[in-house]
């Protein structure tokens, strides 16, 4: 079957997709987007986390056909989004600065999940962070540095959201 959807703002199409195939497989093996990682294939590890119509999901548990006409954002789609000459997203930069990357396998899923948290809540408590990242496993057990990175990135998201509200407050 053919599946057509938007991946990181670009219209994409995959042919000969098997009906039981996951969105993760289509992203990695058919569309050349290997950022989302394939590990547990049962929703336990979160390393395949992507946004489907804005909502964080395990792409290994979304049937490819269910992505038809939807919008998917993977870790590859985060850089270059936050300003004119922006490079990495604030959360990506913070992961580097905080030393939150060890083997790196869990990183894309954590980045996507943390980015969504900060977009919703730019001043998260530690409990909010733990809750939002509770579906992402890091087997290097680098969680403290990961929490540091999220805290470090938060101000960058606060200024993002402050801009429109300031404008709307103007007479």
């Amino acid at each position, binding site marked *: 079957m053919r599946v057509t959807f938007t991946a990181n703002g670009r219209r994409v199409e995959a042919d000969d997709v098997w009906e039981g195939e996951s969105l993760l497989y289509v992203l990695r093996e058919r569309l050349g987007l290997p950022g989302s990682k394939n590990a547990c294939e049962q929703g336990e590890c979160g390393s395949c986390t992507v946004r489907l119509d804005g909502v964080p999901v*395990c792409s290994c548990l979304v049937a490819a056909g269910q992505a038809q006409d939807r919008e998917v954002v993977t870790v590859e789609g985060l850089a270059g989004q936050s300003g004119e000459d922006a490079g990495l997203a604030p959360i990506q930069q913070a992961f580097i600065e905080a030393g939150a990357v060890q083997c790196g396998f869990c990183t894309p899923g954590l980045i996507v999940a943390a980015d969504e948290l900060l977009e919703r809540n730019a001043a998260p408590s530690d409990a909010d962070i733990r809750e939002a990242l509770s*579906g992402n496993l890091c087997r290097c057990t680098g969680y403290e540095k990961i929490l540091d990175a999220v805290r470090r990135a938060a101000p960058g998201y606060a200024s993002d959201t402050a801009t429109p509200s300031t404008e709307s407050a103007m007479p």
Partner: protein
Amino acid sequence: MDFLRPAGWEEALAAKAEHPAAVPIAGGTDLMVEINFDHRRPDHLLDLSRIDELEEWEVGETHVRLGASVPYTRILEQLRTELPGLALASHTVASPQIRNRGSVGGNLGTASPAGDAHPALLAAGAEVEVASVRGTRRIPIDDFYTGVKRNALAPDELIRAVHVKKAAGPQQFSKVGTRNAMVIAVCAFGLALHPDSRTVRTGIGSAAPTPVRAREAEEFLAGALAEGGFWDSGRTIAPSVCTRFAELAAGACDPIDDVRGTAKYRRHAVAVLARRTLGWTWDAYRGRGANGKGTERCA
């Protein structure tokens, strides 16, 4: 394998009538695991994710009609007041990613004894609205679970919604697992006080072949509360009553030994959960009644 993509509910029912063995898929959080691991190869997948009304709910006078595909995230964020037990249970489901996709309709369809929604539905009181091209019927939750991962659906039927009684009193849900997130319940317990009818209802998960109520425990507690005039006085419940309630809850279990825990442990843990949830709910009931003083509790 065929991937059926009905655009609306009538079309979905027609597809299910034509292909009764078609397996419905909404959030995919159970089914895709089975497909990924090659444990299941259905001839037809019936994708329900394009049917918007399945993700809607209506709050009525006495009940909430909860669309089968309303994600757990919506329930725990937006139905906390009307369905406190189910909202608590929803919050214990897996992880944010899974709660964004998983739904009560999926729990009911899979009918695993470990599904987190079941104890809360049993305790609150609910009816499952199922439909086929032949028509619609409502199955009381007490008659819905028919065996291990079996339910009362006919092959051509789909789950449309669940009608859950709005809370008239405090409700609790508690679950035992090895960590807070991503845990299949070792056992779980739901308790709802129904001051309007002066009854209590319970639900036990993962401790019998199906989700079950602890009926003897419910009757005992309702009797003890009525006899002592507790609903009116809001007095502290005697520890002996809490203990007996817990014993009867454990007695309603019919657990097995498996990788997650032994039968003996499950019975013990259900008794502890029953006693604690009774303490929490009764404290909440007392707290909003006239005699809401003191902090003595069963737990």
